[in-house]
C-alpha cells in the first residue's frame, strides 16, 4: 500500500457487516442486564420531538422551535470479527416508544422476547409485533429468584406459540446464559431460513 494513498477500494472490498438483534420485553424484565452480560454496553440516545396535542407552536423567523425528549436506549455491541459485528438493541416496551421499533426491526437478524413468568402478559405486544412483521424470534424466560419455574410447554400454551418456536430459560446476569440465548436465536433463524435456490434451474 502506497503511503498516504487512501485505499477506498480496499476498504469497500472488505465489507463491514453490521447485524441487528432486537431484545424486547416489558419494563424491568432484565433487558439492560442481559445486554450488559454479553456485550460491550455503549451509551446511545435517541430523541423524539414532543408534539403534545394542544401545544402551541411558536415559529419565530422561520426557526423551528422544537422541544425534544431524549430517550436512552439499551445498546450493546459484540465484535465477532473485525468485519462482523452484532448490535443488540433493547426495544422499550412501552407503547409510546413504538415509533422506534420499525426502524430497529428493519433487516434485523431476529428478536429475543425476554419474559418474566410472573408477568407473562407484558410480552404479548412484542410477540404480536414480530409475528405480524415476519421477524423470527425466540422467547427467553428470565428466571428471577423466587419466581415459580414454569415448564416451557405451559408458557407456550399461555402465549399461544407455535410448537417450533424455541423457549429458553435464562439468567440475564450470566454471560454464558445470555450467550446461549443468542445462539438459540441464530440457530432458530438458520432453521427457518429458506434454503438457497439452486441457480442451475433444476
Amino acid at each position, binding site marked *: 500500500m502506497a503511503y498516504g494513498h487512501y485505499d477506498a477500494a480496499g476498504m469497500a472490498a472488505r465489507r463491514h457487516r453490521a447485524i441487528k438483534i432486537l431484545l424486547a420485553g416489558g419494563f424491568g424484565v432484565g433487558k439492560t442486564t442481559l445486554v450488559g452480560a454479553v456485550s460491550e454496553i455503549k*451509551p446511545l440516545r435517541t430523541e423524539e420531538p414532543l408534539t403534545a396535542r394542544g401545544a402551541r407552536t411558536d415559529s419565530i423567523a422561520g426557526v423551528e422551535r422544537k422541544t425534544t425528549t431524549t430517550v436512552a436506549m439499551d445498546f450493546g455491541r459484540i465484535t465477532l470479527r473485525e468485519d462482523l459485528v452484532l448490535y443488540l438493541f433493547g426495544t422499550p416496551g412501552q407503547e409510546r416508544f413504538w415509533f422506534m421499533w420499525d426502524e430497529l426491526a428493519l433487516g434485523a437478524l431476529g428478536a429475543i422476547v425476554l419474559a418474566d413468568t410472573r408477568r407473562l402478559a407484558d410480552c404479548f405486544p412484542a410477540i404480536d409485533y414480530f409475528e405480524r412483521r415476519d421477524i423470527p424470534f425466540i422467547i427467553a424466560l428470565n428466571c428471577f429468584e423466587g419466581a415459580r419455574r414454569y415448564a416451557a410447554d405451559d408458557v407456550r400454551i399461555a402465549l399461544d406459540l407455535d410448537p417450533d418456536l424455541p423457549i429458553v430459560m435464562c439468567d440475564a446476569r450470566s454471560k454464558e446464559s445470555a450467550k446461549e440465548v*443468542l445462539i438459540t436465536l441464530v440457530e432458530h433463524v438458520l432453521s427457518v431460513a429458506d434454503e438457497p435456490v439452486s441457480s442451475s434451474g433444476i
Partner: protein
Amino acid sequence: MPSNDERWLDAEAGPVVRPYALTRGRTRHAGEAFDLVATVTTTGGRVADPGALAPEHISVLQLARVPTTVVDIASDVDLPLGVVRILLADLRELGLVAIRAPVAAKPRQIDRNTLREVLHGLRAL
C-alpha cells in the same frame, strides 16, 4: 388523570433538551434514508470551505476514517441519533462520506453463510 405532558415527561423519558440547535433546527435530513447500522466511511474528499463544518461534523469525520456504523458514531460522539443522522447527511451532500446499506433491509434477508459465521462467532465468545 395526568395531562399529556406529564405522561411523556417522566424520568425514564430523559431530560427535555434542544439538541437540534446543532442542526440549525432541522429535524429531518436531506437525501436518501439510511439505516442505523449503515456503514459510514470517509471518501477522502476535501471541502472547499472548512468553515462550513461544525466541530461535530469534524468529530464524525474522524470516526468514519475506518468504516463505522451510524449507531457507533452516535454513541461515540455522544449525540442523539437523529442529530447524528443530519450531520451525516450534510457530510454525504458535501461528498465527504459514503454511507453503505447494511447486509439486510428486509426480514430473513441475511444469507446463511453470514448466519453461520455469526453462530461460530458467538460460540467462540
